[in-house]
């Protein structure tokens, strides 16, 4: 004969009690080893909403170039115009098409289409507008990404996870700012001096500015901000005391293609 009902209920009740209380009791009586875990670094710069203000009154052509160079150097962005091996040189047409860029200088009529007027913008047209990923609050690239390789972090940064990118380029079609570049070929032969502390990319992935998340994590400002001699201001948009908010409060700023509703978070003082 099997067990009777009384015996069965008694066993079931006992095993429930052991199951529920057993682990807690075990942890209490035998405090085990410290489990491995990841923690936020103490020196990291954190914010609720990162944003950037670009002061075009302070930005001349040389500084803009320096900002772009600093960014591309620390992030191992290839320069196809200067291959390490002369055999890898591309035709001028392909140079434009296959260019990989995170931040670059552009004309006013390219950076701010819809805002151009026939007269009175001669000064603006001569300025080197530094353009980069706007880290939109409503990023279309994130919405269209089929693998969630590009995603919005809690601090507002629109980040790329190269491990998940399948190279479908939906994000490039979705981005109205042309901030994304596709790796049509292996970028390594085109990197002058490789920054050993930052990975390169592979053929077949899309890349863009990440607001230097790897530098923020160790308490450094983005590379372009450091190289800009004060023309680029970076900070927390939710903190009323931050430099970014101070600039926005005191200066008139414009944003690129704000009418599209992506809510870009790079502001320009013109």
């Amino acid at each position, binding site marked *: 004969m099997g067990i009777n009902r009384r015996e069965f209920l008694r066993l079931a009740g006992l095993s429930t009690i052991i199951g529920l209380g057993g682990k807690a009791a075990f942890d209490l009586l035998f405090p085990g080893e*410290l489990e491995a875990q*990841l923690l*936020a670094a103490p020196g990291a710069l954190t914010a609720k909403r990162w944003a950037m203000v670009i002061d075009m009154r302070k930005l001349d052509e040389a500084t803009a170039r320096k900002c772009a160079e600093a960014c591309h150097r620390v992030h191992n962005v290839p320069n196809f115009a200067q291959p390490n091996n002369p055999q890898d040189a591309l035709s001028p047409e392909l140079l434009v098409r296959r260019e990989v860029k995170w931040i670059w200088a552009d004309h006013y009529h390219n950076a701010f289409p819809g805002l151009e007027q026939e007269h009175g913008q001669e000064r603006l047209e001569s300025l080197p507008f530094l353009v980069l990923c706007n880290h939109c609050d409503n990023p279309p690239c994130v919405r269209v990404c089929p693998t969630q390789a590009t995603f919005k972090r809690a601090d507002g940064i629109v980040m790329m996870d190269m491990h998940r990118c399948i190279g479908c380029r939906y994000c490039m079609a979705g981005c109205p700012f042309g901030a994304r570049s596709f790796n049509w070929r292996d970028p390594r032969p085109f990197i002058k001096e490789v920054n050993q502390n930052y990975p*390169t990319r*592979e053929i077949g992935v899309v890349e863009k500015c990440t607001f230097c998340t790897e530098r923020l994590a160790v308490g450094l400002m983005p590379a372009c901000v450091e190289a800009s001699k004060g023309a680029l201001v970076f900070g927390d948009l939710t903190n009323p005391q931050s430099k970014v908010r101070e600039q926005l409060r005191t200066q008139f700023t414009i944003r690129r293609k704000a009418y599209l509703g992506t809510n870009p978070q790079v502001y320009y003082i013109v």
Partner: protein
Amino acid sequence: MNNQIKNEFGVFAERPTVEKKFYNRLPIVLGLAIFFVLVTLPLWQNVGKAVPVPQPQLDTPAIQKMAEKDRKCVEPTAYMRSNHMLLLVNWREDVVREGTHDFASPDGKKYVASLSNTCMQCHSNKTQFCDQCHNYVAVTPTCWGCHLDQEKKVAEAK
């Protein structure tokens, strides 16, 4: 009657008689033999040969410099041997997607969660330490398409 096929209309026709015979015996047997040899060729080629078991070395400059008691990986050796890929995947998810870069090992020591900047700083002998085992078990991790190993740098420093 036995040799005839019967249908609903009656006897239909005589069953065709075909001689039961193994036609083209030689080419078929020969072909099968050749096929068998070709398919099992890799086995024959390697019969009697023992592929040396990989022996990852820890004799890199960075590890040599450490004191004997500090020569510990971020997790116990046995765990790393069997689960380093899971650890790296966890690091990847945490660093890229969560933005947490600090890793605390079971003995409380802190590390930066980074393949190139933490693992490869000690294990700078990628060909010997990583590739040897990966080749032995025929896996090709895609880490190195983007992440840089420190092998060249260490070789140049020597």
